[in-house]
């Protein structure tokens, strides 16, 4: 559906490019996760896809057509849900929806139908007459999402859509977003919450310092060829064992280890017992997304 090929972008007066040779393939009918630490280039990429910026190099194709051409032919094809509450606090929920539907150029009857559908989708029926500034954080997020669904976009760009909401609202938002592909809307989802991405995305890309570090189906990325393990002890790992199993210190007596074969796991447990170490937790095999993310982006602190 959306093909990004060798895209680069540099902001005016910036020393380094925000994006370098970025290539992604976002198939239709799924939720695609875009991950990266702060400053990785996620927002720049979303701005390029939303038509707010124009790529200096490379190409972006939507359904085989250059993005600008595709957007000109159908301005409602791609919708952006920014991280901020991008609506009018002094207007009511219904007034906000009617306004954005009007800006999309929908006709009067369509405005009513689509506003009603958006209200039902985000379960905003009880608060349609309430001013947006009086809504709770969770309801504001739902309104932000509902506005993005007006015009029935083919691709919905969601930038951190669950920031600052309670667990109930987050769960509702995630379920709603996961249901969107079935209704014909492909979702590009950026978030810092790894468990969210792992729960609803079928494909992911990890960006750092303007480059794509990895991209592909989530299952493929999480299944690793090497036998790796994460172990948590009650004390530091003895140095000879740390050297033998190429340990990386993950903090709080947690260590990442590599095995040449899985039989080494049994040996390790014996050796730890002999050294007087108690094993609190052991995770062997498929890594989780957070482990993959941390391994690829390193553990250094970002801005």
């Amino acid at each position: 559906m959306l093909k990004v090929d060798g895209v680069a972008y540099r902001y005016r007066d910036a020393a380094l490019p925000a994006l370098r040779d970025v290539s992604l393939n976002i198939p239709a009918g799924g939720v695609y996760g875009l991950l990266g630490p702060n400053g990785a280039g996620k927002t720049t990429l979303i701005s390029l896809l939303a038509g707010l910026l124009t790529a200096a190099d490379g190409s972006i194709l939507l359904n085989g057509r250059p993005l600008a051409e595709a957007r000109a032919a159908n301005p409602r094809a791609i919708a952006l849900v920014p991280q901020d509450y991008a609506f009018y606090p002094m207007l009511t929920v219904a007034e906000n929806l009617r306004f954005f539907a009007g800006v999309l150029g929908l006709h009067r009857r369509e405005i009513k139908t689509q506003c009603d559908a958006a209200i039902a989708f985000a379960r905003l029926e009880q608060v349609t007459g309430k001013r947006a500034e009086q809504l709770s954080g969770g309801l504001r997020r739902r309104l932000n999402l509902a506005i993005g669904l007006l015009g029935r976009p083919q691709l919905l760009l969601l930038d951190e859509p669950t920031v600052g909401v309670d667990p109930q609202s987050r769960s509702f938002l995630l379920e709603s977003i996961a249901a969107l592909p079935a209704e014909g809307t492909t979702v590009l989802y950026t978030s810092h919450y790894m468990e969210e991405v792992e729960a609803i995305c079928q494909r992911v890309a990890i960006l750092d310092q303007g480059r794509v570090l990895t991209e592909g189906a989530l299952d493929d990325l999480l299944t690793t060829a090497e036998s790796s393990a994460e172990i948590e002890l009650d004390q530091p790992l003895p140095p000879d064992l740390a050297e033998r199993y190429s340990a990386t210190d993950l903090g709080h007596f947690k260590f990442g280890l590599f095995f040449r074969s899985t039989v080494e796991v049994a040996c390790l447990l014996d050796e730890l017992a002999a050294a007087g170490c108690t094993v609190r937790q052991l995770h062997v095999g498929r890594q989780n997304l957070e482990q993959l993310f941390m391994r690829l982006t390193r553990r250094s602190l970002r801005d």
Partner: protein
Amino acid sequence: MTRLSALWIKETQALLRDRHGLAALFVMPIIFILVMTMALHDAFMPGAAIDVAYAIVDLDDSPHSQSLARRLAKTGSFRRIADPATTDAARADIRAGRYVLALVLPKGFGERLLTPAGADGQATEALTLMVDPTLNPALQLAFRNQTSAALGMLRADELTHRAGKLFGLPTTARPAERDWPDEIVSTAVQNDRSIRPPSSVQQNVPAWLVFAMFFVVIPISAILITERQQGTLQRLAAMGLPFRLVLLGKLLPFFVVNQIQAVLMVAVGIWGVPLFGGEALVMPSGAGLFHCWLVAAAVSLAAVACALLVASLAQTTQQSTIIGGVGNILMAAIGGIMVPKFMMPGAMQTLAEWSPMAWALNGFHTVMLRHGDFVAILPDLVKLLACAALALAAATWLNRRQTA
């Protein structure tokens, strides 16, 4: 059109819920018009009475001293409220605040009217003016000048009278009773006819209307900055809405707001000011009224465009309130809104030519006071429209630059 009407409806709804913005646009200028019209009621009336009281201590009590007192009373500029018998009584009254000036006519005033001090070897006692030290020096000087003038006329009449008697020339029977001063009538020069000069309401209504119209900067920037800070402008751009449409969406609602302001301020001038004892505003009729609207329309475009520029320059609503508010007050101070241009020194009048508020006020004065035609208001209209076009272009450029 659906998009524009959606923008217009949104701006209207947002403005109707902005109480501070509405107060700045409608309540503040009405208060200004009423207060300033009342405060400056006399400042625009040539020869109008000055509300300053004086007393005369007539120690001479001669026909000449009485004549001087009558002549001073006839000028009508100052209010004579007492005739204390002694200087001590006058001093006590001034200290008590009953009046601020007391003119003491010394004993022998009439006798020595035509004898300059020391001319005959005897001292002539001077007239004394007792003054409250808090009195404006300009008013003290005005009273001294009036007294000197009255004294001069009294001497001249007395001299004529005596010389007439001496040379057998015809003289008036009672020179001391002659009216003084010879009245000088002020008339304002207008296009086709002469009427009396503008009243304070005719000066103040257009001035504060212009000021109020430029105050659209407060609500406009409040909404535009909220839109930018909350990512709403980004969302609108992502929806394919060009920025020029966003600007156009603000232009019409606030143009209407400005026109409502104009109608309201004129109504206050016509019906509100007389309720407070002021004079009613006189509006031109026929083509004059249309020209008045043309000026109002051009002022509105300039005001809204300037407001959009300020909103584009400022990053926060606090900044826009400072830039917009202070900028407006400066433009008003320079442009003759707060202090009429004719009261300014030459250099300041030249500076005033650079304030859009001065062009606006001049346009209104051309129509309302000088009954000017379209050609007469054209230079001001062109300046205002050029200002609007430049401000809009700058606002668009700034927004494009910020998003690049």
